[in-house]
């Protein structure tokens, strides 16, 4: 710690102190008391942020945003307006245009690039939420989805090889409140009560162009009152030491929940082209701070607090989930879930187990492959045998044919022979006759008295 050579060391978590330093008041009063030293030259670690920045830009960012609310509250339009892309377009309409009977969870991913920085944005939508006649437990699907993402991350974190660890946890949940002008509905309260410990909830007043400014103020106050009454913990903006930032944060806090209007249609107003909604009595501008709080939402969500949302998700909500999960397992000692077993062992044992698992997997694969191989071999043999039999048969047949032909030929030859013999016999006879005749002729020539 201080360069003293004294031993034995005493371990305070990760810092090793030697005995003499231990007694110094500065160290006894806790680690927070760091002595600030002035540098005598330029060292250069002020460049650290740049290095981090360069690395992160190369890696790109991920952000998962969940939108929850009844159908027809303008969620898809708002997403399109926020990110200035047509995530939901006429070809791929938003969930409200597709009627759903039960609550489902849908994910859409889009990769946005701006100024060399890449953002992989995942929008999780919940069509069917609050649309049925009986909406009890419509939040269960949402809770299950969030928990499953946490579990995936937990498992990925507990693996031995965790180079690729995609962060698909839900970083922020935008909850859309219908602009009734009265207060929260029982469904809103139930949902927020169940989800405020799992995800950052940012409540929004949807379709805020329904409300006049006075109604809007009253409505916001009513909602905040009810939120406090039911002890719902919505996302809290972090306190900063910076004057400017804290003023900004205060401004945002005063206007919670944000009343938003979404639109991507461009309309001409006083020669300016703005995004807005055209009514017979005027144009409600989306980016006008006096008309609605859209710009505040966008700045907060994207430009200033995106990283903070991710951090809170990681440090607070995820840790809550993790500790609850692990505590439950160690408390019960019985795992109901196959995956839970992985988490109770120390890293070494886990490595051992993973290795064993790996080996068994390999063995299994080998076996399987062998089986497959054998099967194939058998098949081939069978095929060969079949073709052999076939060939044999053909061979037999051909032999028979051949023999038949042979016989025929023999027959024919015999006949021919016979004929030949008979012909020869005949010839001989004829010859003999001729000979006899000629002899007779001779004889009769010589002895004419013998003929007649």
């Amino acid at each position, binding site marked *: 710690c201080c360069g003293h050579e004294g031993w034995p060391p005493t371990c305070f978590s990760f810092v090793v102190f030697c005995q003499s330093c231990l007694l110094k008041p500065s160290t006894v009063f806790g680690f927070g008391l760091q002595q600030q030293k002035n540098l005598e030259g330029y060292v250069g670690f002020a460049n650290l942020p740049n290095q981090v920045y360069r690395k992160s830009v190369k890696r790109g960012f991920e952000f998962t945003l969940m939108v929850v609310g*009844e159908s027809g509250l303008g969620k898809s339009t708002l997403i399109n307006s926020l990110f200035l892309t047509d995530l939901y377009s006429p070809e791929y309409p938003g969930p409200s245009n597709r009627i759903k009977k039960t609550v489902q969870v849908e994910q859409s991913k889009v990769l946005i690039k701006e100024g060399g920085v890449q953002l992989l944005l995942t929008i999780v939508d919940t069509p069917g939420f609050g649309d*049925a*006649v009986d*909406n009890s437990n419509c939040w269960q699907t949402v809770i299950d989805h969030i928990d499953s993402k946490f579990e995936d991350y937990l498992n990925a974190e507990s693996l031995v090889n965790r180079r690729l660890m995609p962060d698909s946890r839900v970083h922020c949940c935008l909850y859309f409140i219908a602009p*009734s002008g009265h207060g929260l509905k029982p469904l809103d309260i139930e949902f927020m009560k169940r989800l405020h410990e799992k995800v950052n909830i940012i409540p929004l007043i949807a379709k805020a162009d329904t409300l*006049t400014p006075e109604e809007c103020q009253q409505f916001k106050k009513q909602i905040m009152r009810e939120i406090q009454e039911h002890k719902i913990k919505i996302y809290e903006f972090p306190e900063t030491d910076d004057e400017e930032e804290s003023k900004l944060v205060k401004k945002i806090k005063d206007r919670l929940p944000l009343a938003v209007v979404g639109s991507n249609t461009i309309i001409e107003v006083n020669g300016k082209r703005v995004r807005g909604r055209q009514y017979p009595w*005027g*144009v409600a501008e989306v980016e006008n701070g006096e008309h609605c709080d859209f710009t505040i939402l966008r700045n907060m969500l994207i430009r200033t607090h995106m990283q903070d949302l991710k951090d809170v998700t990681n440090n607070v909500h995820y840790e809550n989930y993790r500790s609850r999960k692990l505590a439950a397992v160690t408390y019960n000692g019985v795992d109901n879930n196959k995956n839970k077993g992985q988490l109770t062992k120390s890293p070494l044992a886990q490595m051992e187990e993973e290795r064993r698992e790996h080996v068994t997997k390999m063995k299994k694969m080998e076996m399987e492959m062998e089986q497959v191989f054998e099967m194939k071999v058998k098949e081939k043999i069978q095929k060969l045998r079949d073709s052999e039999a076939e060939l044999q048969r053909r061979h037999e047949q051909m032999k028979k044919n051949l023999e038949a032909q042979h016989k025929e030929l023999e027959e024919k030859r015999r006949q021919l022979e016979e004929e030949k013999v008979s012909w020869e016999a005949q010839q001989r006879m004829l010859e003999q006759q001729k000979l006899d005749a000629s002899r007779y002729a001779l004889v009769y020539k010589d002895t004419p008295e013998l003929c007649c």
Partner: protein
Amino acid sequence: MSEIVPPEVRPKPAVPAKPSHVAPPSRSALLGYIGIDTIIEQMRKKTMKTGFDFNIMVVGQSGLGKSTLVNTLFKSQVSRRSTSWSRDEKIPKTVEIKSVSHVIEEGGVKMKLTVIDTPGFGDQINNENCWEPISKYINEQYEKFLKEEVNIARKKRIPDTRVHCCLYFISPTGHSLRQLDIEFMKHLSRVVNIIPVIAKSDTLTLDEKTEFKQKVRKELEACGIECYPQKEFDEDMEDKSDNDKIREAMPFAVVGSDKEYQANAKRILGRKTPWGVVEVENPNHCEFSLLRDFMIRSHLQDLKEVTHNIHYETYRAKRLNDNGGLHPISSSVPMPIKHTQVMCKPTKF
């Protein structure tokens, strides 16, 4: 041999002849002014003296502007909210039926207007059967009227608490009807006159409005829901063409407001937003004036008649058939069965 025999006078048949055999009365020209047309004047005087009652029920989720709309329709603070309710009151756990009555007068004509509100409808997490309390209430009113009618000693003028018109508020999602809307209208369109309206329609731009209306009309047709004015009760061609025009424009996209603002040197009812003032009575902005003319200025009497002649009669027939005779559910006067054959209806104006 021919004899002049006076034709035998046939005895008159004991049973009165069927009406179709009676020749229609021949038109005869009047030779002078008799004064038959003053009957209209006489009726008017009578009506003004007795006044008449109208019961309107508003159904919809909380926050859709029902009470504001009723106030705007009758240009006075007649809704439940103005009498006792405060803005911060909690949503009730079950559907309640609250009715508030006022007597309003215009041009010498008195009207007892009853607004029946249904807080808690569609607000819970589980909204199964949230239309049952409403259905029960409507049938109870019919039952009350039936009992009075069937009484031996009838009142001269039976107080009419039956619901003449039910305004159903559709939430302006811009996409389609919600499952709850369809269920409610299916169950109640045969029992009461339903007029669907699109609430808070200043949320929708003109294109969205027309699209939404078309979708709603298509869905209502697909589910076989008949809203007022029902096609089957059109009496003649004139009625049909009038009602067709109205049916094309339904459901009305309305905006309600009870505050007045200055615009174009006039004081008009409207809603002031940072980008303009929504004028409630401007037909370009919303269809409130259409709804008001339709409901009050032209079809008010028809609403009452359809309720009395059709919905009430259906209920009555069902009750009488079910019980095989009228056994009033709870009555102090015993009912002899002969009374059920009395067919004449009390005259109503």
